[in-house]
């Protein structure tokens, strides 16, 4: 048999949420890209919850969109209910979540992939990675990717490989005593790649996650549940989606609760749970506990919430949110049937737990390239994360950086102060994560700046520089910035006197009267007042605003009809929360100083005197790129950081001396 060889720029392994974003980014940047999947029908599959977004995950999708990713656009096309969470709280934690029609989501994404220039879709299992050993006088010996080999023996030569294998590597599904060696939904597992990775010296680990049962809608009594509606005014995920286009009829979700009887059944059958019986070796996530875990760990809780969510419009399957489990089928049936509304439920798909191989992401640079293998990138659950959104963001960054490397450009590394994506990746590649990593707002220390409403202002320019955002979109962003600045200045510099009209207005709003003149900005800061209501006393508003818009049009070309609504939102937030934003910006300045102190790639930590042994070992192992990253490694103390700083400064001075000679 003659050997078949194909020549590509990039090979993407896996077509889940990470793989799709990675492949699209590469192809859109003009690189010949092939994406492999064990089944074409599982492209952009949502094997667990039927929604995109949620607290902090909504932020991720917005950021992804600002950089030129696809997820936001795809959910805007296929959602069946949408809700902005946390609206009673501050703007920084508002977060969008949409219920997806799973089948439609998958189909729509597949269509995008199929129509993408430079992108080839191939159904095949990648079994082996191909590489060569390299040496460079300046560097420690390293490996370089040359291609991949499929199960049928075909070789794809390439310059970069992006691994997005999700939960498929040596996957094992558990449902009580029944154990199958498959990926999610009975799909074929990938059983060979792990070995190839280990041969390259990549260290593997095993994680676990789980999903609840799906029920037949016809067997559920919804009259015993509380109906959960979507928002009246729907806000799209993507900055490029016209808000008018997403106002449509929505389906409902339903809320019910477990009870003591449910918990009784679970407790009585714990010995049959693979987790409690010790059959599962992988580490599961604490934030997404199975119902067994909830009952055991929070024994004092009398009930747990259960959300019944549709899996799509054209299916009767309903997702039972809050009750993932790996108990045997007979226990599952008994347990679900104790829940009000589910007394006669019929299970379409059983709940199960899944175990899979993944890596400790500390083997990666923040660019998501392996430190020891040039041209090998990875993203998604393979990196030890969890969630569609987390996966998509890593996929995009891995795709961008594989492209940047091939094109000979600088990698795109986002830091903790500019994005949730930066927090996500920094946490993954720096911290010792012992469970699948989920994004949370509490992980972002500068979250007052990292809002979902300003993701475009933070990141669109970077997307443009990379080449995934069009000239037109970038112009629109500049126009938005221009308008925000103009309007904020106007409000700060426009004062209203303490005259009768103003005092009457304030009184009618339940706001205290003015003693002296005040600026409109000062009035917006009052909790009971807003930009909108101040229109009553802001008599010149319309005149100035239309002048600003004309100016913006002159400078940047078109200004779309809804743009000024977005401007008002920013203006109001900037003014109302100015004090907090300034405090946060100061923290960011401190943080940036340390991030800017880069550590040379070939740093020899054995030559740094006075480092404690533990710190030396950790630094050698993880090779941080900056002093800032070093300081976040557990086991590296502030004193070690000081020592490192002095050493680096010293080295710099030596360098200067050498230059003089």
């Amino acid at each position: 048999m003659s050997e078949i060889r194909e020549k590509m720029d990039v090979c993407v392994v896996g077509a889940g949420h990470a793989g799709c974003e990675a492949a699209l980014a590469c192809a859109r940047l003009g690189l010949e890209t092939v994406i492999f999947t064990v089944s074409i029908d599982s492209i952009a599959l949502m094997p667990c919850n039927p929604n995109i977004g949620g607290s902090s995950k909504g932020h991720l999708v917005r950021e992804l969109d600002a950089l030129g990713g696809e997820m936001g656009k795809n959910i805007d096309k296929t959602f069946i209910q949408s809700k902005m969470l946390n609206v009673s709280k501050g703007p920084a934690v508002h977060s969008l979540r949409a219920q997806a029609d799973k089948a439609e989501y998958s189909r729509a994404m597949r269509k995008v992939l199929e129509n993408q220039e430079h992108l080839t879709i191939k159904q095949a299992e990648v079994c082996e990675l191909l590489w060569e050993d390299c040496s460079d006088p300046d560097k420690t010996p390293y490996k370089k990717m040359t291609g991949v080999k499929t199960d049928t023996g075909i070789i794809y030569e390439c310059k970069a490989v992006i691994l997005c294998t999700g939960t498929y590597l040596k996957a094992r599904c558990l449902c009580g005593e029944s154990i199958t060696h498959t990926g999610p939904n009975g799909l074929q597992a990938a059983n060979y790649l792990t070995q190839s990775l280990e041969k390259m010296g990549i260290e593997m680990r095993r994680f676990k996650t789980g999903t609840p049962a799906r029920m037949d809608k016809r067997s559920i009594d919804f009259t015993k549940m509380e109906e959960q509606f979507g928002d009246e005014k729907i806000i799209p995920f993507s900055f490029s989606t016209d808000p008018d286009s997403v106002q449509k009829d929505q389906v409902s979700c339903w809320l019910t609760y477990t009870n003591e009887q449910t918990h009784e059944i679970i407790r009585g059958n714990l010995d049959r749970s693979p987790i409690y019986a010790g059959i599962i070796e992988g580490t599961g996530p604490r934030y997404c506990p199975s119902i067994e875990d909830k009952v055991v760990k929070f024994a004092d809780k009398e009930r747990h919430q259960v959300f019944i969510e549709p899996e799509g419009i054209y299916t009767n399957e309903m997702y039972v949110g809050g009750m993932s489990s790996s108990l045997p089928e007979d226990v599952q049936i008994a347990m679900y049937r104790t829940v009000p509304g589910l007394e006669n439920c019929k299970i379409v798909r059983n709940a199960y737990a899944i175990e899979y191989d993944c890596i400790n992401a500390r083997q990666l640079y923040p660019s998501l390239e392996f430190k020891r293998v040039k041209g090998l990138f990875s993203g998604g659950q393979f990196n030890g994360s969890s969630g569609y959104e987390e996966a998509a963001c890593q996929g995009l960054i891995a795709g961008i950086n594989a492209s940047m490397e091939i094109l000979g450009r600088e990698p795109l590394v986002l830091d903790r102060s500019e994005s949730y994506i930066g927090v996500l990746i920094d946490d993954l590649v720096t911290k010792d994560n012992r469970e699948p990593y989920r994004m949370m707002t509490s992980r972002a220390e500068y979250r007052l700046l990292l809002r979902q409403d300003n993701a475009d202002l933070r990141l669109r320019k970077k997307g443009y520089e990379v080449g995934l955002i069009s000239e037109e979109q970038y112009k629109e962003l500049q126009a938005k910035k221009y308008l925000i600045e103009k309007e904020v200045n106007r409000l700060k510099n426009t004062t209203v006197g303490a005259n009768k009209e103003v005092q009457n207005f304030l009184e009618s709003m339940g706001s205290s009267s003015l003693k002296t003149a005040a600026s409109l900005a000062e009035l917006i800061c009052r909790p009971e007042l807003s930009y909108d209501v101040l229109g009553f006393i802001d008599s010149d508003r319309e005149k100035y605003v239309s002048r600003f818009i004309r100016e913006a049009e002159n400078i940047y070309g078109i200004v779309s009809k809804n743009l000024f609504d977005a401007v008002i939102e920013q203006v109001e937030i900037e003014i109302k929360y100015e004090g907090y934003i300034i405090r946060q910006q100061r923290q960011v300045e401190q943080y940036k100083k340390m991030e800017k102190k880069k550590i040379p790639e070939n740093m020899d930590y054995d030559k740094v005197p006075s480092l404690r042994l533990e710190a030396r070992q950790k630094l050698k192992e993880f090779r941080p790129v900056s002093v800032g990253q070093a300081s976040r490694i557990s086991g590296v103390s502030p004193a070690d950081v000081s020592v490192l700083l002095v050493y680096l400064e010293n080295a710099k001075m030596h360098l200067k001396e050498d230059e003089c000679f």
Partner: protein
Amino acid sequence: MYQVDTIAAIATGMTDSGIGIIRISGKDSVDVGNSLFCTPSGNHILKNVDSHTLHYGFIVDKLPQEPCVWKDYIIDEVMIVVMKAPRSYTGEDTVEIQCHGGVLVMQKILSAVLDAGVRLAEPGEFSKRAFLNGRMDLSRAEAVMDLIHSQNEYALQSSVSQLKGNLSEKVRDLREQIIYEVAFIESSLDDPEHISLEGYSERLYEKLTAICSIIEKMTGSFENGKLIKEGINTVIVGKPNAGKSSLLNTLVGEERAIVTDIAGTTRDILQETIRLHGISLNITDTAGIRNTDDIVEKLGVEKALEHIKSADLVLFVIDTSVELDENDKAVISMLSDKKVIVLLNKSDLSMVADEKSLKSIIPDNAGIIRTSTVDNKGIDELEEAIKNMFFQGQLRSSNELVITNIRHKEALQETYQSLKLVLNSIEAAMPEDFYSIDLMNAYASLGRIMGEEVDDDLVDEIFSKFCMGK
């Protein structure tokens, strides 16, 4: 330069000595020195003096708003020197205050400097700046790194050793309370459909107000510490003729108590205040304790018992040249719950009572020192022991906490300020997610007292206390 703020620290170490130096370095140092330093005629001249000149005058505490005599606010009489950049140790503008070398005086001056907006220097930070500003020979870089490290370890050790007992318990408790609240807020943000914040602000406001007043009391104890102001009530007890009066005399340095070889000579209570490493000790010498029918002596014994009750520190003198008897045991029975140093006196004579059998009957936490007032043996050791107990916060008149370390005080003040910001946010009806930024700052500040970092505490707390998830 990697950091530009102004820092200060005691440059001469935390022991009593003839002269102490407080060093201030950074761009604001001359301004700060100028505001604190007065010439004898009451002028603030430091801003206008030449570099590398020495001046005589006073360090004056911040004056109150109302009219007052500035001389009433003098902390110490000092010499002060200004060294302008780059001709100083650190290469930055530097002011050095040379004051009297008592620990308390130095701390007070440092405290005034910090109140003027200067940050307390990290261990080794002056040297680090000197190096980074190119003021230090390159070959000394390694020595600097060693220095940073050893000083850091030292600071950590000493702060840990200071943290035995109540202070660490209190701080740990406050931290736990704060992180619980943050975790609650955060879990409700991450999982709004499971956890509600209904009516939460009011509850938090009450809780933080209570925490604030605790912290206020703690920081207040640094300046107004009863012990510092009024002295430590120290009582010398022991059976007749164990050597109590001799000990008092040795400590005081003069023959105050009547000393004879006849048991029961001290019938009255003698009181004396002495200064020891800057700490005031109110020492009371009591009549020896023994069963007695002598009316005068009996009165003395009863008084002694009373004094033990109100004492901060008990020095229990045992005559080791004779066997322990009922009287010794009677004293021991009164010492539970007291801070005690046991002095095995008359070590110049042959030992009859052995240390092992003693240890089995005296309170566990008591220190044991061998002394002889004839040849002053063990007296230095005793003074050292008292000093350590004081600075470790072990001596206190009631259950009230006393902050003795300026780092702790600074951290507590920062905590307090952060919590106040949270209270402001609640008052201004800000949404709950705005509380976290300042609550976490408060948590981090308290953590500095314990030498602990924040890291993943919050995420762990969220998962362990609140049931999250899909």
